[in-house]
């Protein structure tokens, strides 16, 4: 059975973006995930974020590993190049692609198994390398494709569908990313699209590695009583740090008049991320404070969501490698080959 394409139906009153494209142009194949899967909501949020950012779909590269979450790259932006690689190794493939062509917009979709177990090393090193990409970790605490085993993000005491509690301590991708020096760290909830979309937009605009851990419940294997990754548990216990508004550069003038903002961060391209109603006690550019904030709430059994930390000043992979601005794939061969004369001279050094 091949994947199912959606019929290209276009409603006459659909809104267009600056490229003249509608949201439909940012959709992909029909999802084959279970009805109600959190991942499909994340997919919808991604469609909206790309649409609103006016990104030409073919200039985006969708990278993924293996798992339910990794399959979703087929469900958005059919006009984008996609790369469904091997389990847990998407970060290295994305690093290589970015090394070769830094002008594309890279979005990586992964899950808690793909990122925190088999791919933990690759995730850590992509963070260290500060590859310019948005990394969305669709986190449900469970292995769906292999039918319900606990993943490394499952909380101690959280119960499996059969009622067995998890005993091993979880790896929290947000704390991990903060401690490794990630330059953009956020946590969202698939059930709160309104807050997720601006977070995704900020992540796509961020220069460097942006990670968003999205709690995305698995309706089939981890949405029952006793699970700490269920819709109900997440809704009851998530604690929004502050909603963010993403103000693209070109809309700056009109948006500047909006009041009620206490903290804002200017992005690399001049866009602005505003933290709405955040108290003066929280500084999203203070890594230690962000870490402490997440830990404090965790102690209380709360899941902190929001854009938790941002650093727009750090060097990304290409800054570190001191690469030319032009994508390496566009350099003409003539500028790469030293030629016959240089080789002759070089040979004299080996006589």
């Amino acid at each position: 059975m091949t994947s199912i394409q959606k019929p290209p139906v276009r409603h006459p009153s659909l809104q267009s973006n600056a490229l003249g494209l509608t949201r439909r142009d940012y959709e992909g194949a029909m999802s084959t995930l279970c009805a109600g899967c959190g991942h499909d909501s994340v997919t919808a949020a991604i469609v909206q974020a790309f649409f609103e950012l006016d990104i030409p779909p073919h200039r985006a590269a969708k990278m993924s590993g293996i798992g339910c979450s990794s399959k979703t790259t087929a469900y958005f932006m059919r006009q984008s190049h996609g790369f469904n690689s091997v389990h847990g190794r998407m970060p290295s493939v994305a690093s290589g692609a970015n090394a070769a062509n830094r002008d594309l917009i890279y979005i990586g979709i992964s899950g808690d198994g793909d990122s925190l177990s088999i791919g933990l090393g690759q995730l850590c090193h992509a963070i260290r390398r500060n590859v310019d990409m948005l990394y969305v970790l669709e986190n449900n605490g469970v292995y769906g494709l292999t039918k319900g085993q606990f993943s490394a993000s499952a909380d101690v005491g959280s119960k499996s569908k059969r009622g067995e509690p998890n005993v091993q301590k979880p790896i929290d991708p947000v704390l991990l990313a903060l401690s490794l020096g990630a330059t953009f760290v956020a946590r969202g909830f698939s059930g709160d699209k309104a807050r997720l979309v601006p977070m995704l937009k900020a992540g796509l605009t961020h220069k460097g590695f942006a990670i968003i851990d999205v709690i995305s419940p698995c309706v089939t294997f981890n949405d029952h009583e006793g699970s700490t990754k269920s819709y109900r548990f997440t809704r009851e216990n998530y604690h929004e740090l502050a909603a963010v508004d993403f103000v693209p550069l070109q809309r700056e003038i009109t948006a500047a008049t909006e009041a009620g903002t206490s903290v804002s961060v200017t992005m690399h391209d001049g866009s602005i991320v505003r933290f709405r109603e955040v108290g003066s006690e929280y500084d999203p550019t203070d890594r230690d404070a962000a870490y402490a904030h997440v830990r404090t709430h965790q102690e209380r059994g709360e899941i902190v969501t929001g854009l938790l930390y941002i650093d727009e000043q750090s060097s990304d992979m290409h800054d570190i490698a001191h690469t030319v601005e032009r994508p390496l794939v566009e350099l003409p061969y003539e500028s790469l080959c030293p030629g016959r004369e240089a080789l002759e001279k070089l040979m004299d050094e080996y006589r």
Partner: protein
Amino acid sequence: MGIPVSGKNVFPSNIQGLPTWYEIRVSKDGHTARPAHIDLVVALNPATYAKDVAAVRPGGWLLYDSSWPLDQALAREDITILGVPFGRLCVEAFTGDRERTLMRNIAYTGALVALLDIDMDVLGEMIREQFAKKRALLDSNFRALHLGYDYAKKHFPCPLPIRLERMNASREHVLMDGNTAAALGCLYAGATVGAWYPITPATSLMEAFTGLCKRYRVDPETKRNNYCILQAEDELAAAGITIGAGWAGARAFTSTAGPGISLMSEFIGLAYYTEIPGVFFDIQRTGPSTGMPTRTQQADLLSIAYLSHGDTKHIALFPADPGECFYMSLAAFDLAERFQTPVFVVSDLDIGMNDWMVKRLTWDDNYRPDRGKVLDAEQLERIQRFSRYLDVDGDGIAARSLPGVHPKGAYFVRGSGHDKHGAYTEDAAEYQEVVDRLAKKLKTAEEAVPAPEIHQRNGATAPIGLVALGGTHAAMLEARAVLAGQDINVDYMRIKAFPFGEAVRHFLDAHETVFVVEQNRDAQLRSLLTIETGVPRDRLTPILDYGGLPLTAERVIGDVARHLEASVA
């Protein structure tokens, strides 16, 4: 002095600085393989005297520092022991511990100049070149040189029966290691992305590439780099980076050794199945597992040919020396892009890390990379629908598109089952259509990879054929020459690439007796030949040398002679 020479560093896997041997072969006939017998041992380290004395051939010589006389228990009747009190001479001539120690080595050289009749002018010029910027050291070096020279002249009959004579045989040659040459090949091929994880003996390849890039690949205007080298967290990531970059359209490569090849296995299967180009250098060392990291072997042949799970087969090139490392690196990038698949350059520690005398590398400025079938924006604009895995030309190679070029070129790369359009499938026929085309593609590659090099006397087929690949070439040529001197005429085929073409099969068919010479325990090349050509296994007699040192001609000659005697008896 224009004499054919080769040097082999026999070193331990150790950082502390345990004893190391450097073997130099000098041959007027141009033989550069590791010799089985050593004429003269220069013993520098009392800790290894026993081993050093034992290494000298009967009738040979040992030069050592007699400031501390050799233990009489070690002395041999059948060799000449030449003692020069280098330590004492240097203590008398120089002040300070550092100078006294360093100059001892130069004094040794002085003695060798006298014993072997080395041209003092040539050596003097070298020392002057070496210390051109440290003139203060010039005088000490010349004094030390003469300490050894004068002592040897006075005490021994100089020169020895083995001596050097000026020749003109290395005029068009350079002395270079294979890893440097391979790095140069990558530079000239236009590679822009290099990914790696440090591992002996492959590390020096990426280090050489880094050095070359700093020299030749910095944009003159912006001073920024026209390359991106990433030291990855492991070989898995190095392979992933290579594949990601290859997918995006760059010429990308990684260099590793056996343990890294094992780790890359999964990614290689992905690149094979999704048809993404990349160049993978395997600088083979002694396995299995960690094995002996500083010793050589040809024991990754079978694993590379079919690396990864499922049905896979890969193009592999087997350079024989650093010269070929250069030209084959280039060919590897062309083949990888033309066939949209990973290509291996299978070198080894002996080729990669030792200095070999090779013809000066040359370059044709008319060379342009073979990028294979890549559709550009205009071509994509014109076509109705782009299908990634459609065999339009009947050669098994489908056209690809690069990300970011055109919306119509977008497709979904997946390591899962896919049909010819690139869409997910679990349908038997659709799945098989793609993997059958992959087999056809590799079949096409058989005649596109370098053909074997065949050595025959006057084009007439001898009854005996020798088969080998890679760095054993020098020993094979020498063995063939020596056998010819004994009136044993043998043909020799050096295989240059996998998958094997018709010429390989033909050579095996045309010879009654075939010896397959290789550096592994299990006759891996023989297995590959049997699997791929259908030639019965018992028609191929293995000659196996797998102790970790470069092959000697004597080993081949001895085994061939023994086999022939046995078959006569």
